[in-house]
């Protein structure tokens, strides 16, 4: 039951999708659309598990004073703040109650999670922490309900329009993302210096092809010849090898998928 039933599910759904491909009827298309929607909905529940993993690993780090535990606080604050911003919006003209609520929420969650984790580990005072957390959470909710300084948005997407949510995105996420991406320029150069050597025939082929293409993008006296050669390299040997790789990958995938459907490959269930 624990292992056979899932394998049966895999077989049934897998076969269904294979057969679906041959059936153009609209019922088959609708069924496929539903399976697609299901995958998306399952994904968000899984994300909750992921966030829980991030939180519990961070808290564990802090509690056990593992190396670099201080930074786990920063992660947790960033995470909770972003989720808070996403579900709420500030409706009063001043921001202080809004941010005060965020701090109350942080403390409440901290106590709550400490309490929950404490139950399992049998730590002292976990009950007290848990209930203190719930109490603070209640205070936090009451402010929202009665103070009218800010509000919840679980059922309307206005949270996405929250000013702070947007600011955090454009002033923190965007620069961090593009800077991280820009690091690639540095890594490429150090790799070129260290590893790009004509050690043997294969490495030399790689190096020569790379140099030809690089020269093409660097203005200089080589001009037309290099431009023609690099176009040839891209259109002839490159195309050929890409096709060989694509066919290989395709067959590898088809074989793996087939093994999964037939229940021969079960690595993903923990069993090899």
């Amino acid at each position: 039951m624990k292992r056979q039933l899932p394998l049966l599910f895999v077989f049934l759904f897998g076969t269904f999708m294979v057969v679906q491909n041959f059936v153009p009827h609209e019922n088959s298309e609708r069924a496929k659309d539903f399976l697609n929607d299901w995958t998306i909905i399952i994904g968000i529940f899984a994300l909750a598990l992921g966030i829980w993993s991030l939180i519990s690993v961070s808290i564990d780090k802090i509690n056990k004073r593992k190396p670099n535990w201080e930074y786990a606080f920063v992660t947790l604050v960033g995470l909770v703040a972003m989720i808070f911003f996403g579900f709420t919006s500030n409706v009063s003209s001043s921001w202080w109650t809004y941010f005060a609520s965020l701090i109350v929420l942080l403390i409440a969650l901290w106590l709550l999670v400490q309490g929950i984790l404490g139950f399992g580990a049998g730590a002292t005072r976990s009950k007290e922490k848990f209930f203190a957390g719930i109490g603070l959470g209640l205070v936090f909710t009451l402010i929202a309900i009665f103070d009218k300084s800010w509000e919840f948005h679980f059922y309307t997407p206005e949270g996405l329009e929250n000013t702070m949510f947007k600011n955090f995105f454009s002033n923190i996420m965007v620069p961090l993302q593009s800077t991280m991406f820009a690091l690639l320029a540095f890594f490429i150069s150090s790799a070129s210096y260290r590893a790009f050597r004509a050690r043997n025939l294969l490495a030399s082929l790689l190096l020569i092809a790379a140099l030809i293409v690089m020269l093409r993008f660097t203005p200089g006296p080589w001009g037309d010849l290099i431009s023609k050669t690099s176009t040839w390299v891209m259109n002839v040997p490159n195309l050929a090898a890409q096709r060989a790789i694509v066919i290989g990958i395709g067959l590898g995938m088809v074989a793996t998928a087939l093994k999964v459907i037939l229940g021969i490959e079960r690595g993903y269930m923990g069993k090899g």
Partner: protein
Amino acid sequence: MLNTLAIIILSLMGASLIYVLYRTIDGRPVERRIVFAYIGLAVMLPLMMKVTPPLPITTDVQKLYEHIVKLPPGSKVLCAFDFDPPSAPELQPMAVAFVKYAFKHDLKLIIMGLWPQGPQQANMALQEAFRDSLVAVKPHEEGIDWVNLGFQSGNEFVILSMGDGFKRMFPRDTRLIPYDSIPILKNVVNFSNIDFIMNFGAGYPGTREWVQIGVDRYKSDLGAGTTAVQATEVYPYLSSGQLVGLLGGMSGAAEFEKVLAEKGKASTFILAQMFGHATVMAFVIIGNVAFFVLGRKKKNPEGNN
């Protein structure tokens, strides 16, 4: 002052590469942090220099230029911004130069985007253009001289449906004003009322889709500015005449600024890019020269597949 300093440092860096070569040959390759420093400075310093590198104008850019100058004042140009911030260093300078030129020569711009962040990039380009003293001579009004129709999801299907009528895909502009109440869009039904399409594309959907639908199906004139990576892919459309001209990557942008006489960021960026590329190549060459000198002494045991 900054200029001179940058030139001096860059020349010193060039000279010091000989020492790097010596060390590498000696079997003591420099640390990666030094390589990082070289790359960082090689990209940063040229940005501070007021030097324009001599750039020959390639025929792709020349062709686009010749087509644009022929557009009479009052021509309606559809501007498709199909890129996002990561591609902005290459594409934004092209867009800025084009917008400035258009405003100075009284071309009417109809802006849209197949990428969510495209219309924002367009707004940034417009802001930049308005700062230009020659553009500011004459007031340019939204809705009369230009309009931003915003982003529409649906990739190539958006272009396809625009053939039926722009209004279908863009019932309102970004200010939420209905299509029919925008002066510039009066008499603009579909592609047949557009004199030229300019696309700034960084991938899918982008130049390829505009060629396949806008040009092949609706017979419009299309010019494009793309990233260097994309340029290789759309190059065939240029030789077949489906594109009137092509700006490829940073060098395309710099050449475009040069032919339009709109000095902009690309002219300095191209210098940074040239130095960056040259530095990477220099390190590849140093590594290999050292390897061949050293290689005779001992075999490198490190193997790769």
